[in-house]
């Protein structure tokens, strides 16, 4: 087990380095820099600016300096766009927001998705099953950037129940709609996966045995069927968490929640390299860690997996 974890970590580190190289090369190849604007800056000022941010160095040295600072001091450097702030400040401001609604979305997607999937599987081919399948197919197809404005239209403009945007320190009224918008399609996928794996498990011999010795259905499902049926869901959680972080781009724009998605898009348009790099790296590290955690959990829970 320990060897497996070490081996996976050994793969994770080059992955992060490749990510650094790719984004660095991309930004280096970009025409135009962060200090290009309509008003031309005098060349001396430009030279000073570039020297301050290290842009006059050759590419490999910029990259090495950057990686060194990140690894040794956890310092992502200053932001080019917000002159009085560092990338660490930007991430510290945006990431907790994304994390809050991301985590809630994960919880909602898991709980609702698994319940829906189990209910549909237990009552296979009933009205409930068809409804669940219908809902999940619809929810998978409806993009979150269409669903979010419809939510705003209904709950803010027509009913006036919820605020249409903002964050306000994460008060519950402000969290509800981002969470619904973000979690729905993952909820649908989880429900579909749960349903099909639950159907498979319910047809297996040990469930028949459990039924035959007279256990009530509820106990059979909760104690015997649920755990093996959830294994495929577990392996889907890694990609789902990553998708939720990516989806935060849309949520941030529509609800003005101020998570890292918003900062990323703004910085991409403003060529704020430092912030782009910081966020891309953060998301990359999160992606790798989620997949790692899920894989380790999987290997730990499922005795059939050989690692």
């Amino acid at each position: 087990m320990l060897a497996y974890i070490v081996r996976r970590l050994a793969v994770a580190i080059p992955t992060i380095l490749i990510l650094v190289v790719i984004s660095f090369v991309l930004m280096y190849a970009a025409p135009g820099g962060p200090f290009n604007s309509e008003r031309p800056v005098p060349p001396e000022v430009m030279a000073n600016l570039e020297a301050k941010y290290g842009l006059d160095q050759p590419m490999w040295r910029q990259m090495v300096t950057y990686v060194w600072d990140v690894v040794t001091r956890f310092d992502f450097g200053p932001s080019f766009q917000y002159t009085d702030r560092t990338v660490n400040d930007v991430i510290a401001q945006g990431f907790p927001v994304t994390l809050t609604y991301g985590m809630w979305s994960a919880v909602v997607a898991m709980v609702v998705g698994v319940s829906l999937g189990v209910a549909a599987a237990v009552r296979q081919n009933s009205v409930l099953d068809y409804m669940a399948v219908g809902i999940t197919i619809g929810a998978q197809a409806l993009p979150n950037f269409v669903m979010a404005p419809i939510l705003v239209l209904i709950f803010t403009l027509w009913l006036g129940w919820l605020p249409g945007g903002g964050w306000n320190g994460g008060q519950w009224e402000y969290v509800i709609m981002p969470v619904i918008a973000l979690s729905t399609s993952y909820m649908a996928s989880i429900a579909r996966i749960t349903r099909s794996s639950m159907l498979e498990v319910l047809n297996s011999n040990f469930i028949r045995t459990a039924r035959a010795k007279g256990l009530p259905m509820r106990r059979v499902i909760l104690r015997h069927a649920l755990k093996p049926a959830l294994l495929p869901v577990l392996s889907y959680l890694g990609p789902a968490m990553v998708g939720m972080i990516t989806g935060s781009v849309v949520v941030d724009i529509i609800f003005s929640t101020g998570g890292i998605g918003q900062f990323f898009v703004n910085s991409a348009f403003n060529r704020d390299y430092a912030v782009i790099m910081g966020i891309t790296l953060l998301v990359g590290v999160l992606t790798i860690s989620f997949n790692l955690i899920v894989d380790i959990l999987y290997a730990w829970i499922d005795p059939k997996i050989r690692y």
Partner: protein
Amino acid sequence: MKLAQPDAKMLQEVGDLAEVRGRSLWADARARFFRNKAALAGLAVLIGVCLFAAFGGLIAQYERDFVDFSLMGANAYQGSPSIATGHYFGVDIDGRDLYARTVQGTRISLLVGIVGALVAVVVGTLYGATAGYIGGRVDNIMMRTVDVLMSIPFMFVLILMLVIFGRSILMLFIGIGLISWLDMARIARGQTLTLKNKEFVEAAVATGVTPLTIILRHVVPNLLGIVIVYATLLVPQMIIFESFISYLGLGVQEPNTSLGALMSLGTKQMNNGTLWMLFYPLFFFLITLFAFFFVGDGLRDALDPKDR
């Protein structure tokens, strides 16, 4: 001599049986697919959507980039959908005919989905089959590469690429091509691992066929079933992906459009009361995705050997 008669008869019978043609995998799959009502309905809708995308422009009364200045900004009360004015789906906020734009949007969205799936089929299958067939260290390196590429947050890298190199359909296709084949490569490799120990591959090796020919002639055809299934399910993913990029304003650029771009415009005008700007593109988007889901599920039931 007495036994000769029944023997001859039996031989005759066996000979007759051999005349009966066995059902091939594909004939079997076709029969199963055509029994599946949902899949057939999906296929019919899909053909309809394709016809709409290909020939819908013929009955449009306006060019897709024609701007009717008298309707610009006045579409809420003068540009509603009507047969009489020739704006079947109404007019958008800039006074352009939404019908012509929906036709074009459907065309581009389908194109994006199909290009993504094609890249996945060609690159992913060959890559996965090669890795799986050769095995050993090559396999290890090739699949670790896929692992590494999969852990990169591609949505972010693609946004970066589109901002840096300019927004064009070509760039979008490159971006989609870069990610779409990864899953397919894994699936193809997994299947190849089970195939390569089969007798027919052994026979091919024994008769001295080169590895490349074995991969192309013996392995890939046997992967086709599962590849087709996942390609069909990949198309809607790619369409959703493109719509997301278009929503950010980084995808297809004006005067061209895609369903995602149209829906994004539609959601921004929802308060204006011009709901048709959202609902017509959304309708085509949803039925296209549903159709692909159902056809993909039907194909999986028909072709995936696991589910028999």
